């Protein structure tokens, strides 16, 4: 009997009701249906696209100073790519039916393109990685092949690397030249696809005509710009962390395989790379802010029917989120941090963390802010993020779910760096 009662009670709680508070006149079925995971989705795909564009700056446009960063960013982009669809899966009411999107896509829907865009992008990154690390695969598998008494772990390693070579063992000067050309083509092809992957996430929002805040053709472009900003920021951050760790290892023991031997050497390389990368970060940050402000000014100037309620949300209810947290803490402060002369690693770390926070707040203000007002234009909805989960739903679509999604790519990156070494391996690329 108690179980029946509780299941009956459970049925009474409508999806979205747990974290939505309504104010004034709101339609009875309106709730904040798209919650934290839908904030995470564009945030994660943005990181994927941004990291890829960063790596392409070197491969396609030959920005030499980004050489160190390029390989790193590509592997990171691949790690992030696996995590990009997870927020959606956690958000779906029927996650097991998620593959319907791939099996029976309904092409008038923006979401239906997901499978095609996602997998073509994945294929490009995977093949670019293969060309980039082909020589490494060959080296490892050949050295293991010739080793007489292989231990079990070495056998496994041998099998993995052997299959990763795809049977191609040609590492002549000529073949490597061809690889380089292939990388360049793939990286060039990848830029529009990466932009499409994320621009289309912007299109998902921008094309919802029922939502006054979302509907703007600028949305995909704004999303791409802020995506690149966040991708570069995360790459810089992870790069600094790994470099610092390496410094730590160097002081503890000198390993012969390390590329840079002394602390000073690592430090100078590190700062150089970061200075260069942060210049690109600033450039895209300016583009993103300009577009966002253009959108805001345009809405205020044209002042269509929805403007009254939008104004009350933008300048009233969400003022702190938009102007203080997003533009102030997330854009203006890092801007000053980067532009003040005498850049130090510590300041860069603070700057990129704030930039990442700013981009996250931008996604938040779009997704949650877009649902902060009712379709009646005369009521409001407030979102209360579930922090401590008390059931599956508040875990999936709460702080805990979002945090696990954010941490997962780092774990994957660590695992992947075992196969694609991001620093210690010397190649010509």
């Amino acid at each position, binding site marked *: 009997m108690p179980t029946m009662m509780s299941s009956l009670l459970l049925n009474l709680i*409508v999806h979205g*009701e747990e974290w939505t508070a309504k104010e*004034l006149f709101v339609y009875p079925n*309106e709730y904040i249906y*798209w919650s934290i995971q839908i904030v995470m989705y564009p945030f994660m795909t943005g990181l994927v696209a941004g990291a890829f564009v960063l790596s392409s700056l070197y491969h396609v446009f030959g920005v030499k100073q980004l050489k160190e960063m390029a390989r790193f960013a590509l592997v990171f982009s691949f790690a992030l790519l696996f995590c990009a669809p997870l927020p959606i899966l956690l958000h*779906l009411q029927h996650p097991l039916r998620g593959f319907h*999107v791939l099996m*029976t896509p309904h092409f008038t829907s923006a979401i239906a393109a997901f499978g095609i865009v996602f997998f073509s992008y994945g294929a490009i990154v995977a093949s670019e990685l293969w060309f980039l690390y082909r020589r490494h695969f060959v080296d490892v598998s050949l050295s293991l092949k010739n080793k007489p008494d292989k231990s079990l772990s070495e056998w496994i390693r041998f099998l993995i690397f052997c299959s990763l070579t795809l049977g191609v063992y040609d590492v002549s000067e000529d073949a490597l030249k061809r690889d380089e050309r292939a990388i360049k083509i793939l990286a060039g092809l990848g830029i529009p696809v990466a932009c499409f992957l994320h621009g289309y996430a912007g299109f998902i929002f921008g094309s919802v005509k029922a*939502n006054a805040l979302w509907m703007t053709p600028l949305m995909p472009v704004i999303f791409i710009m802020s995506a690149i900003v966040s991708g570069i920021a995360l790459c810089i951050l992870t790069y600094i962390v790994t470099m610092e760790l390496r410094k730590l290892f160097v002081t503890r023991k000198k390993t012969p395989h390390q590329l840079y031997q002394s602390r000073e050497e690592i430090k100078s390389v590190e700062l150089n790379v970061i200075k260069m990368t942060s210049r690109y970060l600033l450039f895209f940050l300016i583009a993103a802010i300009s577009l966002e402000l253009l959108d805001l000014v345009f809405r205020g100037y044209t002042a269509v029917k929805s403007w009254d309620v939008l104004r009350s949300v933008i300048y009233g209810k969400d003022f702190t989120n938009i102007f203080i947290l997003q533009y102030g803490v997330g854009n203006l402060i890092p801007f000053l941090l980067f532009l003040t002369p005498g850049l130090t690693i510590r300041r860069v770390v603070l700057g990129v963390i704030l930039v990442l926070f700013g981009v996250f707040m931008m996604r938040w203000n779009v997704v949650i802010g877009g649902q902060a007002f009712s379709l009646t234009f005369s009521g409001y909805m407030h979102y209360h993020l579930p922090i401590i989960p008390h059931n599956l739903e508040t875990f999936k679509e709460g702080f805990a779910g979002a945090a696990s999604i954010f941490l997962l790519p780092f774990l994957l990156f660590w695992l992947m760096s075992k196969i694609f070494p991001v620093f210690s391996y010397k190649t010509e690329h």
Partner: protein
Amino acid sequence: MISRRDFLKNAAKGIVGLSIPLAAIEIISPEKIFASKGDKKVRWVFLVDTYKCVGCGLCVKACKLENEIPYDANVTRTWVERYVIRKDGKVFADTPKGARDGFTTDKIALGEGKYQEIKKEDISQAFFVPKLCNQCENPPCVQVCPVGATYQAPDGVVLVDRKWCIGCGYCIMACPYGVRFFHPVYKTAEKCNFCYHRITKGLKTACVQACPFGARQIGNIKDPDDPVSKIIMTERVGILKEEYGTKPQVYYIGLNKEVR
């Protein structure tokens, strides 16, 4: 022995060769089959006479029971809104529990347990507006469904396939009228379908049947002799949120500009 290069070349040729005859076959859309089977002489429309509505909520109650929407869950396929316009022009509106139990107090619900009292002498006009799915001619919810789980029947009614809906909520976001929600039990998108199981058998919808004042009527716009069609064609009727281009098919008599 065949070389790897030749093998790949021939495999590619083979695939291309095989796919050419396949391309000749037209991909048949399920919609086309469904449309060819359906009755083209029917287009369901709805007519609401706001002058007749008294806000009793019997329609909401009947709908919840008929369509098995958990009675106490705060979602509903149809609801009734109350509008009170003060002499100073300020508009108040509410729909407590979708007016399932009617409007039991004069005070206007402001949400979060707060109420607004309006003096009778300050009121310039007050009325009720029933709401339900508009079964749009150009339904944005159908357009955005990534798996085609929601679709428009040839008679105009927009339906949801509970076995196929993935629960992404895109359709809920796309509907300008807020008629969609997640079913608390099935966890799939849910909406008013004009009681499709009833109208296709010649019955009236549950809400039409339950309304004691005849404020709600359903009809077939393709039949010129249908009483609802006659009213829509000869009287002045309005529709909701025309600006979205959805071409809604629920018509209102006595629609006010204040109605959202």
